């Protein structure tokens, strides 16, 4: 218990530090005092206000929400599929979302405003197709079937994406930003449209915490306790798909988080109990993405780099260190 509390405390501290850094630092120097004034009062120049309120604040919130969403999505998928390599990529969401976004960028550039919608729609469509195939025929809903169906969908949509990029090579650079993954400072627009998907995903995940613990003891024990294993897996898939598709719509393709954060959290806390792993993955994911994003836009300011490599830079050494210590 003490160990878990220590992990929570560390994660909260990291999250707080990252959030403060995200608001205080950026390509343009704004003294911390002014930042506080702007957030809590009405101080600062118009330029500073614009920077803090319209650029940094929404972006920080987006990073918090997306980081938490991807952490949770990875944790519940790993639990539901009983496979340590499970992540939102496995259920086809990332491939579909990438395809949807690239489709808009390349074939309908005039409708660029619909990019988040395209990513969301195709992300959910890909996940739906995975579930349909995995739930048909024998061994319905078994982990093996889900993973294989996910791989098939990923290959399908990746091929579609590659085909589009090859057919319109000059439009490719715009597509690269999305694929590399990263947040943009575009105010509250996107969050305002996409938040319901996050909300529903978070809610379902919350309700699945205990059932996932039951599932960890096997389908039979879960059934003995009154759960329906297939329904739990389906619910986890739906929640993960919603969270991952909504995340991709806002922040592009960020695969690393959902896979690695739950493992880091498990090793640090020494337990696989979902009552710990799910909330801790939310905190850990949020902290990692906010920290990575802050680095990505301050290290070579005013140049903005994609956030993916920074998350890896922060997360992998920690992961390896914990791996060495783990029994």
């Amino acid at each position, binding site marked *: 218990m003490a160990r878990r509390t220590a992990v929570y405390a560390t994660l909260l501290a990291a999250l707080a530090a990252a959030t403060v850094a995200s608001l205080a630092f950026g390509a343009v120097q704004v003294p911390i005092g002014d930042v506080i004034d702007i957030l809590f009062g009405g101080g600062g120049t118009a330029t500073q206000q614009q920077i803090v309120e319209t650029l940094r604040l929404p972006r920080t919130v987006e990073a918090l929400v997306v980081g938490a969403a991807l952490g949770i999505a990875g944790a519940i998928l790993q639990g539901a599929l009983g496979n340590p390599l499970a992540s939102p990529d496995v259920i086809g969401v990332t491939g579909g979302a990438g395809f949807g976004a690239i489709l808009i960028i390349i074939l309908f550039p005039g409708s660029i405003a619909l990019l988040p919608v395209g990513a969301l729609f195709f992300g959910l469509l890909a996940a739906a197709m995975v579930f349909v195939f995995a739930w048909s025929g024998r061994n319905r809903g078994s982990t093996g079937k889900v993973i294989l169906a996910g791989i098939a969908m990923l290959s399908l949509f990746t091929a579609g994406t590659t085909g589009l990029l090859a057919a319109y090579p000059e439009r490719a650079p715009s597509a690269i930003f999305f694929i590399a993954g990263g947040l943009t400072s575009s105010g509250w627009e996107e969050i305002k449209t996409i938040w319901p998907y996050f909300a529903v995903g978070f809610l379902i995940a919350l309700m699945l915490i205990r059932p996932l613990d039951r599932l960890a*003891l*096997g389908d039979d024990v879960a059934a003995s306790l009154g759960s329906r294993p297939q329904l739990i897996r389906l619910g986890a898939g739906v929640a993960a798909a919603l969270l991952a598709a909504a995340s991709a719509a806002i922040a592009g393709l960020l695969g690393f988080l959902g896979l690695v954060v739950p493992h880091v959290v498990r090793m640090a806390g020494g*337990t*696989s*109990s979902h009552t710990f792993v799910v909330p801790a993955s939310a905190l850990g994911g949020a902290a990692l993405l906010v920290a990575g994003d802050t680095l990505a836009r301050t290290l070579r300011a005013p140049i903005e780099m994609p956030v993916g490599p920074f998350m890896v830079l922060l997360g992998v050494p920690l992961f390896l260190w914990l791996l060495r210590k783990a029994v």
Partner: protein
Amino acid sequence: MGPGGEQSRGGRPPKGLLEARGVEVEIAGTQILRGADLDLGDGELVAIVGPNGAGKSTLVRAVSGLQRPNAGNVRWSGRELSDMRGRDLARVRAFVPQRMPVPAGVTVREAVTIGRSSHLKPLSRLTGADREGVERAMERAGVARFAERSLTTLSGGELQRVQIGIGLAQEAPVLIADEPTSQLDLGATVGVAGLLRSLVGEGLAVLLVVHDLSLAAAIADRVVVVSEGRTVASGEATAVLSHERLAEVWGADARLTEHEGRTALHVAWVGP
């Protein structure tokens, strides 16, 4: 002769907790159960025996609600199985599978606590009563002394006890175990056998699938023989597991004996 009172011996089983008639189950095109019957009463230990593939596991899974029967009816204390939801069933019976997957990073206490979760509403927290229930279950199963150990560090026998403990945490009147001793060594088997008998002594009703006929004879109040998807006999062990029946159902030349509380199966392994 199995232990137990007059009522639990012989042909007429006590009316009670479970009544299943004419259960049929088809899985992936194969007819596994062709009409099996099963009864279970308060405070009795019933052992289900039969050759491989006879349908023993399928029968207990069907009456437990884990496998939907294609025909027949199953009643728990008079209630139709098909009318009962997961939670209702969890209050009525606890199913212990032969081998559950052993997740990493889960302690014995955490696992038994999960067994308690059938008592909890979706988002509510564990109460003091729940925590006591978990302690009780661990004590009864004899695993309280290694409550903080990780499941991955347990031996086969210890793990089987923990599985029983998880089942006990449900605090249901019936415990159903599918071949709990098939993978255990002699010592561990003796331990689990004693545990199950003591639970019956505390008032639990136990339904058990076993391979080992002498074990079944030793601990069961009643033995049910399943062969080719049907229940062909039900009653006291030495009566049911006669030389003729052993030859007919198992195709073996064997004799079951009991002497001074020990049972034994004498088998002509390599012919006369």
